[in-house]
């Protein structure tokens, strides 16, 4: 049982015009076994939260804390955060030419576990996970993300999540750009991970569509860099009917 605790998080991002404040005091607690959906209009800071948690160098935490079972996440390097159990499924996965998927997965698994996975079970695990995600075995020999279609990139992210077994998985708009078939395959993957009660999921999305496949326990609405409203799954239904207009109006008035 683990807890990821975000307290009063303020984050600014580097822009050409200088630093720009994006997150303005985010509070969020995610426990193992829970699925939290983070929703909100474009520019509300959802992805900034994801990248800040992973430690992307472009994002600067100006105040607030993030702890994982009491440990200061913000003091950790990018790779140490991943080894501590955080996983970010990226919206725009990066190409790494000349590095095969199989080599990449094995290297990452070795880094996360602190030792190389036993060869026989590892090969079997990879094959099974790829099969579950309807990925052709030949995929393993391709260079990481190079020439992948949008759907292949997202499946590859979920593949990593299944194999690396994080404590907390942050999915940054994994659903965007996917057709219904790919969305279903990806959602099945997330649900397989969710079956493990030791995993917490932070599902960042712009659309309610994915919530038909992945049931959240909690829904948080981000507006202007902080949580504007929170609730259970019923909040997602309301958003589906009403959209974000209500929040945008409120934000403008304030």
């Amino acid at each position, binding site marked *: 049982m683990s807890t990821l605790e975000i307290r009063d998080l303020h984050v600014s991002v*580097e822009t050409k015009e200088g630093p720009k404040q994006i997150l303005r005091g985010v509070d969020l607690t995610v426990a193992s076994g829970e699925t939290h959906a983070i929703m909100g209009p474009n520019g509300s800071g959802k992805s900034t939260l994801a990248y*800040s948690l*992973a*430690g*992307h*160098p*472009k*994002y*600067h*935490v*100006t105040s607030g804390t993030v702890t994982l079972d009491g440990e200061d996440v*913000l*003091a*950790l*390097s*990018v*790779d*140490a*955060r*991943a*080894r501590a159990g955080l*996983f*970010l499924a*990226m919206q725009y*996965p*990066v*190409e*790494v*030419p*000349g*590095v095969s998927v199989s*080599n*990449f997965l094995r*290297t*990452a698994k070795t*880094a*996360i576990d602190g030792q190389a996975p036993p060869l026989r079970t590892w090969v079997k695990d990879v094959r099974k996970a790829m099969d579950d995600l309807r990925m052709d075995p030949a995929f393993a020999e391709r*260079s990481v993300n190079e020439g992948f279609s949008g759907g292949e990139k997202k499946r590859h992210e979920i593949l*990593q999540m299944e194999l*690396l077994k994080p404590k907390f998985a942050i999915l940054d708009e994994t659903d965007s750009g996917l057709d219904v078939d790919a969305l279903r395959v990806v959602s099945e993957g997330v649900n397989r991970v969710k079956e493990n009660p030791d995993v917490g999921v932070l599902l960042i999305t712009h659309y309610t569509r994915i919530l038909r496949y992945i049931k959240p326990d909690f829904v948080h609405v981000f507006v202007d860099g902080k949580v504007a409203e929170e609730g259970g799954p019923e909040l997602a239904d309301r958003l589906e009917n009403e959209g974000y207009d209500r929040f945008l109006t409120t934000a403008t008035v304030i």
Partner: protein
Amino acid sequence: MTTTTDSLSTDHSKAVADGSHTHGVGGTPESSRASRPTSFDVADFPVPNGREEEWRFSPVDRLAPLFAGATDGVLSGHGVLTTVVEAPEVKVEIVDRGDARLGRAGKPGDRTAAVAWASYPRATVVTIPKEAVATEVTSIRVEGVEGGVQALEPSGTHLLVHAEALSQSVVVIDHIGHAALTETVEIVADEGAHLTVVTVHDWAEGSVHATSHRLRIGRDATVKHIAVTLGGDVVRITPDAEFVGEGANVKMLGLYFADAGQHQEQRLFVDHAVPNCVSRVAYKGALQGEGAHTVWVGDVLIRAAAEGTDTYELNRNLVLSDGARADSVPNLEIETGLIEGAGHASATGRFDDEQLFYLRARGIPEPDARRLVVRGFFAELIHEIGVPSVEERLIESIERELEKSMSVLDGTTAHVEGSEVGLTTEGA
């Protein structure tokens, strides 16, 4: 083009005949590559001062021992030992200077090449007989004779690799130890021959080396030429490929890795003088450390007679730290419009921060992530070599280079990645 800080690239995937087509920032050659003088007479090449077109990137002071300025262009040292372990089908001879087979592939094109021609006491001739299919790799080792830094004897050597008609073979030339050597490697591929020549320059520190590779490629012959440069203070390699028969194909691959203070220069010239030949050039280099300098100049000339030519050349450089400099100059001259294709691309860049972030976000520590990226950068090129034993060795060599230099990479991280400066969330 020259770069130390920015990512630069040119891409003319489909160049056209516009009389002459030449690219390069910082001075284009004033005349066609065809008019560059070549000669067997060392007197025709004055000692370079560094202002000449073909020496403008070179540290001429460090190369001075190979210019033989004080000895009328002749070196009398015996500073290297050449050992050949040949495939059973292959013939090896040590011949005198006057042997009629020598000097048939082109002529020296610069001072060091002319000095090499003037200096070798005897030459090594490796012959792959007509229609022979070599069942093993032929290994040639050129080794600096131990003598310590002070006792370097500047020397000249000559090697001829002659692949007779319809033969098939792989020849690997290794350069090791400590030496000051100017060398000629003649590579002659007769009709229909298939020849792969790998030349590896992994000299010890303090070594200075210039080598003129002259390729003469006959009708329907296929030559793969691979130049690898890892060790040595200054290594300057000038592979010239000349087509003398139609339907021939040359692939010239290069891989180099320069550390602090190393100068690695490769100047290629592909001369399309006859119709329907194909050339592909791909050189990739990595640089790290203060004063690491690489030069790649790729000249391709498509003469008026060379209709149906298909050529493409590429150079990529990965700058791993501050203080390193990569010069990359592709030149393409086209004298006929009746060609299949002609293009070139050149790019010099730094580590991609987003690549590193992606790998690190999967738990891979930064030094390992950097290693993965560099390995990946070279992987494609290495796999094109097609000789498994050589591929494995090169992968190991790259690993060693990376191992040797991780301190350099670690130490300069903050400079390489400007975006990390001031990153408050970065821990130890």
